[in-house]
């Protein structure tokens, strides 16, 4: 199936340092780039050459289950890459071609790669169900990288990557805009709690650098406010950094060069504010990059790196919490659970913050992706995204009536509300886990007197 994704033009690609490749040079360039990537990533050869095409991954993939498209079976998706890879890089493929399924590079090869590797959310659930642990996410990352260097990348992601390279955040915000947003949030906090809570930016010689998702300053403001309350209550000397206001790192999803550059900012910005501890905000793949890729990309990270959920859960006993009257569930973002093993902290927080906490089935590392992961948040493929999120919607539907789905990931926060609307579950609210903690926290003279309705429609005693 062709997907209506908008590809970036030559000028936009130049912004992230990629030259467009003309049609007739495509084949030669593609083979060179695959060869380079193969030398760089041993994992790619392993993931491609060991697949026996047993089909065990089919029912593990939310993309296949939601779209019912054969090429969305992880093994079939990887086959699009494997066929070309075997044809030019394996002995059997070079000699026996069709016998081992290794056809020549064809005119539609690149097109099919764009279509199918941008229907994969890199959630890596298939790796869990594969008898050998073959991670098709690794193949997708490789394929998208190769496509990018062939000048085929979604406009949406290229623009975000360019913003990251220039300003350090996805929104492309410069310092005046950041200060303005933070001032607005401080006013909001004062109105809500009656307490003066500061959101410092670029404050020198601070102990903690907080790296939120930049959307937390606009669409998910409650998460930012929740984090501010946490730091305020713990009396931590903290700050945001105007050069690194983004936990996300779109580079991982389509261009590892961008990933490396954006990741580099983490250490530089932490040094600039003199931080000892870097706390990452609610962002799925951002946490995966920071936790798992920093060392490989830019060398040892000289500061302590923790996630806000770990940080808050470790200090949970210090908060004065008033349980919210909600029936809530937790969505395990793929990049927290399967990629970084962050399962228990959000659960501890949830149990302390809501009256009824229910688990989704399946949960933890078996959880389904919401369908918005790996940067597939562009509007033009909204119809496809609803199909990708079908399994998630079914999971949430099974828990109805439900007040709240906690989504500790900025991509999920963008995707799941749309899913709930599409599948007729508007009554269920969404938001972050930190947000819940912020709402349940009793600050100053108490939550109830100053703020009678904490969560629209659901709370209020």
């Amino acid at each position, binding site marked *: 199936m062709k997907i209506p994704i908008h590809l970036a033009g030559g000028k936009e690609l130049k912004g992230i340092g990629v030259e467009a490749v003309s049609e007739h040079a495509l084949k030669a360039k593609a083979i060179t780039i695959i060869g380079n990537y193969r030398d760089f990533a041993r994992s790619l050869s392993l993931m491609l050459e*060991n697949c*026996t095409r047993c089909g065990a991954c089919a029912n593990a993939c939310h993309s296949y289950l939601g779209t019912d498209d054969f090429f969305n079976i992880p093994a079939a998706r990887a086959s699009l890459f494997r066929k070309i890879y075997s044809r030019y890089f394996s002995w059997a493929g070079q000699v026996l071609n069709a016998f081992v399924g290794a056809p020549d590079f064809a005119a539609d090869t690149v097109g099919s790669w764009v279509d199918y590797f941008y229907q994969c959310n890199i959630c890596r659930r298939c790796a869990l169900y594969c008898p050998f642990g073959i991670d098709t996410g690794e193949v997708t990352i490789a394929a998208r990288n190769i496509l990018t260097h062939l000048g085929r990348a979604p406009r949406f992601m290229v623009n975000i990557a360019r913003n990251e390279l220039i300003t350090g955040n996805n929104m492309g915000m410069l310092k005046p805009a950041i200060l303005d947003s933070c001032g607005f949030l401080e006013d909001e906090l004062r109105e809500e709690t009656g307490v003066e809570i500061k959101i410092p930016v670029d404050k020198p010689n601070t102990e903690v650098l907080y790296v939120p998702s930049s959307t937390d300053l606009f669409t998910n403001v409650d998460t930012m406010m929740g984090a501010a309350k946490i730091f305020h209550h713990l009396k931590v000397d903290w700050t945001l950094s105007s050069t690194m206001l983004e936990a996300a790192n779109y580079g991982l999803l389509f261009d590892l060069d961008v990933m490396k550059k954006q990741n580099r900012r983490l250490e530089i910005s932490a040094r600039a504010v003199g931080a000892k501890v870097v706390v990452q905000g609610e962002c799925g793949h951002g946490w995966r990059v920071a*936790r798992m890729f920093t060392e490989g*990309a830019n060398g*040892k990270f000289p500061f302590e790196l923790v996630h806000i959920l770990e940080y808050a859960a470790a200090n949970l006993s210090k908060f004065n919490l008033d349980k919210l009257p909600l029936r809530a569930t937790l969505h395990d973002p793929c990049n927290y659970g399967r990629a970084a093993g962050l399962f228990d902290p959000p659960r501890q927080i949830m149990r302390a913050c809501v009256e009824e906490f229910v688990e989704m089935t399946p949960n933890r590392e078996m959880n389904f992706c919401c369908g918005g992961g790996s940067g597939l948040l562009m509007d033009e493929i909204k119809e496809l995204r609803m199909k990708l999120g079908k399994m998630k919607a079914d999971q949430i539907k099974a828990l109805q009536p439900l007040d709240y789905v906690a989504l500790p990931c900025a991509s999920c926060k963008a995707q799941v509300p749309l899913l709930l609307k599409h599948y007729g579950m508007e009554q269920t609210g969404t938001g972050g886990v930190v947000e819940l903690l912020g709402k349940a926290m009793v600050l100053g003279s108490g939550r109830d007197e100053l703020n009678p309705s904490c969560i629209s429609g659901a709370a209020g005693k």
Partner: protein
Amino acid sequence: MIIFGHVLGICFLRGQFTLIGLSAGSSARLSWLLGGITGSVMTLSLVGLITRRLIVPRVKRLSETSDYFELMLLAAVALSGLAMYAPGGHVDLPSVKSYMGGLIAMRPVPLPASLPFVVHISLVNVLLLFFPFSVLMHFVGGFFIRKMLMETPPVYPTAQGNVPRSEFASRRAESHIPVPRHIPVEGQGEQR
């Protein structure tokens, strides 16, 4: 089990179980029986795998010609081996031993004159030739993937002199990638 059975059975001429206290006769009978059972199990499992490939539509569509070829080659090897159990298929084990010994010592010894044995050893040779280039290598590669997946995640802050996740990662971190210093900060050395 099949590989061990072959090595021991041929080496000791079915006498391997005398080492654990069986009589020569019962050792030969046990060896004969175990060989038959493992051979049959292997054949049946291969038939199962081939059937699954043929009847599950999405697996059928995923399969390449070579997938069937590999399975059928393995099944043919197993069947030709079992053929030596059939009436009239008996092979003189001492002459097999001397033939294998000749191969290992690089002193050619004539093949035992038995059709099932000649077919069996030819198919095994084809298998061994094809094996390194085939997907059958997954039986080795699987362990590499498992190792890759089981690598311990990095711990922060990384202790000084501590090897990060793997040798591969540390080599990459230290040698290949020059670490640019955009913002000069004093006291960098102490923190590192």
